């Protein structure tokens, strides 16, 4: 059978709820900033005509002289 919450338990519950909401708000703000930054980078690379990951060297192992240029 369920027991009613005591005032202390209720206060603890609300405090946890509040801290969780704050953490979630922080995460959401951080995501907004991240998505904004990603968008800027994507727009910049598209403008420069170099969208997508940077071109890479071949799959062949590089020699010291090739790699250390």
């Amino acid at each position, binding site marked *: 059978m369920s027991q009613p919450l005591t005032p202390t338990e209720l206060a*603890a519950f609300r405090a946890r709820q509040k801290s969780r909401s704050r953490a979630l708000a922080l995460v959401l703000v951080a995501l907004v900033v991240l998505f904004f930054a*990603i968008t800027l980078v994507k727009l910049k690379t598209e403008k420069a005509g170099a969208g997508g990951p940077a071109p890479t060297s071949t*799959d062949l*192992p590089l020699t010291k002289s090739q790699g250390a240029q």
Partner: protein
Amino acid sequence: MSLAPSSTTLPSMAADWRDFYALTKPRVMTLVIFTGLCGLLAAPGHINPVLGFTAILCIAVGAGGAAALNMWWESDLDAGMKRTRHRPVPAGRMEPTSARDFGFALSGGAVMVMGLAIGWLAGLILAFSIFYYAWIYTVWLKPRTPQNIVIGGGAGAFPPLIGWIAVTDHITLMPVLLFLIIFVWTPPHFWALALFVQIDYAKVGIPMMPVVAGERSTRLQILAYAVVLLPLTLLPWWLGYTGRIYGVAALVLGVVFLMFSAKVGLRHTRGTDDAMKPEKRLFGYSILYLFVLFGMLVVDHVATGYGA
């Protein structure tokens, strides 16, 4: 309207953000972030720092999501082990469904952002790595076979592969070698731990190697994997993918790893009061080993220009 029920038991909603954070296994995530970052930094080519940060964040969040799904699925088992019974779900601070939903949300979010911001090859491999850990390892292999750690070790081996692919957008031999290094490193690392916490695993019926095959066999297998690991870590150097800095570091680190493994592999437990010092030493060293090995890969890349 208040969300808090005033006449019921203290609800599981009482879980605070720290409990959700604990679901992501932050200590394991450190290694995931580090190896993923090393894969990204050692890869040939260039990635914008914002996109690089996003890739690592997605790897970390994906790993956190997989860990939350693992904790949701294994909450009953966790309750029976001393090491895990204080986790949020078995401790009763959180509903199992909250852990499940949190895990799915993190996993889905990480894969979507990785796919859209970095590339769908990296996103696809991240999705597979989450599926590999949360289903192939946790649900399928772990309760069925003592080889669970061997095959499940693949889950922890994905981060450097994904980090590398985030830069190159294609799979080559070198990131596969990095995957294999962690894959072969995992059994001796985990079995060393399983040797000194085997009573816990036996109690909840998880067929860990020491429980099923016995201590002797486990010790010899630890040594066997360490023997394979040494030449495997030297392969990138022999094949010309890295320079001398990595090669020498891999050789020295590998020889020490082999020595610690030999101490574990060739000894017998001395009764129930054995402090298992060599096993604990190997477990501790194995973590340091992987950190330094992958760190040296990046140092080598920066210093010698190999793979640039």
